């Protein structure tokens, strides 16, 4: 059995990267991610982790160093937030296109302007289509566990794709939580050494990142898309084996109290626990409310969403990011797309809230359910910004 400790989630994530025995950490400090790489730099400096810690001059360089070292066959870790993620954007695409299994923890934070250091999902959604495997964590234990899972899945030769672990900034990153740390023996059993198919090595020269003519680019993107979709069984297998070793089983979508539910709250990230609290309160009042929590964001679990929402009358989807001039929230957009061909299908009501750290309480979720039930027609593009003063 592992060791139960009270630990800040950022520190636990750094400890996980240390236990995963990463070879290279390249990062630039940015709130609210800083504690993660700060602790990793201490672990390297104090000799607990035999790795190269590269204190780069920007996030663009951080991801570039990660790409170079991963291409050379190194197990590579980085972490960032918000503007940092925005700055590294072009290289984030290159990491996945070159199929390099880098693991990046993103402590989610709103994007400027106005300048804000607090938590929402606007940074995550700016990299939605970068081709990385992406998960949203509900609590610190999940975040710690998923560092191992991310390497296990990403480095699998059937996958070879980078993995992004989203944790809500401050709400998770700075939370001191009761966590179970696993023994190194478990990690050894779970995580084989990284053996890439191709690596930059003088014994067998290869070219990575060359250009492709119009005659080949489409085939390259098709191959990448298929590879991401083909990660599905490896993702599930990675979760199953982690569960067998630790007792903690994970799934693409978690459901809570959905039996006979009329309304389902659909969330992603740490808001899941708040929504469950709200659902409990409403059940106590005799209202049939359950929760659907999306863990796997890319590849998106369309079938699991359809299954979870089968028989539900109203799905209240809570987004923490705006798609300006578009459909509202990115999560609602995917949920609506998943349900479009279903008959009958739940009415989808989309609320956007919790922007830049604005608190969302169980009472807020109760209000959303009430409002959703009082509304009649909800077109695809309808959404409401919850709690805005007007």
């Amino acid at each position, binding site marked *: 059995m592992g060791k139960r400790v009270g630990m800040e989630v950022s520190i636990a994530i750094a400890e996980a990267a240390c236990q995963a025995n990463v070879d290279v950490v390249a990062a630039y400090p940015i709130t609210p991610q800083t504690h993660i790489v700060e602790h990793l730099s201490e672990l390297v400096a104090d000799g607990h982790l035999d790795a190269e810690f590269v204190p780069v001059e920007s996030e663009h360089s951080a991801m570039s160093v990660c790409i170079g070292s991963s291409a050379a066959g190194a197990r590579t870790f980085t972490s960032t937030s918000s503007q940092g993620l925005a700055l590294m954007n072009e290289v984030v695409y290159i990491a996945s*296109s*070159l*199929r*390099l299994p880098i693991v990046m923890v993103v402590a989610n934070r709103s994007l400027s302007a106005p300048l804000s250091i607090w938590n929402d999902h606007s940074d995550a959604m700016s990299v939605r289509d970068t081709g990385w495997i992406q998960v949203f964590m509900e609590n610190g234990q999940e975040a710690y566990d998923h560092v191992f899972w991310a390497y296990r899945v990403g480095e699998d030769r059937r996958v*070879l794709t980078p993995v992004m672990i989203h944790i809500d900034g401050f709400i998770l990153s700075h939370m001191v939580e009761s966590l179970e740390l696993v023994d190194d023996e478990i990690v050894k059993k779970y995580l084989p050494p990284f053996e890439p*198919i*191709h690596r930059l090595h003088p014994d067998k*020269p*290869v*070219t*990575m990142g*060359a250009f*492709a*003519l119009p*005659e*080949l680019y*489409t*085939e*390259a993107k*098709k*191959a990448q898309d*298929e*590879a991401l979709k083909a990660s599905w069984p490896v993702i599930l297998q990675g979760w199953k084996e982690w569960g067998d070793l630790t007792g903690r089983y994970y799934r693409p979508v978690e459901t809570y109290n959905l039996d006979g539910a009329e309304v389902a709250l659909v969330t992603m990230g740490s808001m899941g626990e708040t929504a469950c609290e709200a659902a409990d309160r409403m059940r106590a009042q005799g209202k049939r409310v359950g929760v659907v929590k999306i863990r796997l964001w890319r590849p998106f679990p369309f079938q699991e969403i359809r299954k979870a929402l089968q028989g539900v009358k109203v799905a209240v989807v809570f987004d923490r990011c705006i798609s300006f001039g578009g459909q509202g929230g990115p999560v609602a957009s995917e949920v609506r797309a998943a349900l479009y061909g279903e008959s009958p299908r739940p009415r989808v009501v989309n609320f956007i809230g919790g922007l830049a750290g604005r608190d969302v309480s169980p009472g807020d979720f109760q209000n959303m359910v009430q409002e959703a039930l009082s509304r009649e027609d909800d077109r695809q593009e309808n959404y409401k910004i919850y709690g805005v003063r007007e």
Partner: protein
Amino acid sequence: MAKPITQILWTELEPGCVIVEPGNAREYRTGDWRTMGHPKVDTERCVKCAQCYIFCPDAAIERTQEGYFLPNLYYCKGCGICAHECPVKCIEMVPEGE
């Protein structure tokens, strides 16, 4: 390369589109970029000075056994730098087909 580029299936690409065969850029026919014609060398006047060979940005000029320097039209993009640099003006840019 075994296969022409237009026949490669997506399933046949290496992960990440890695190129495992070094030097295959030589198969890339840059000669089809030409729009301004191609260089024609008058070997009667050529003094074999190799200025064109040195200045060619694409290394598309090759030395013949006799020591003359002639463009390889598979690669030559027709930029005209060789004609411009030739000290005896023995290189003329002529329209395609001539």
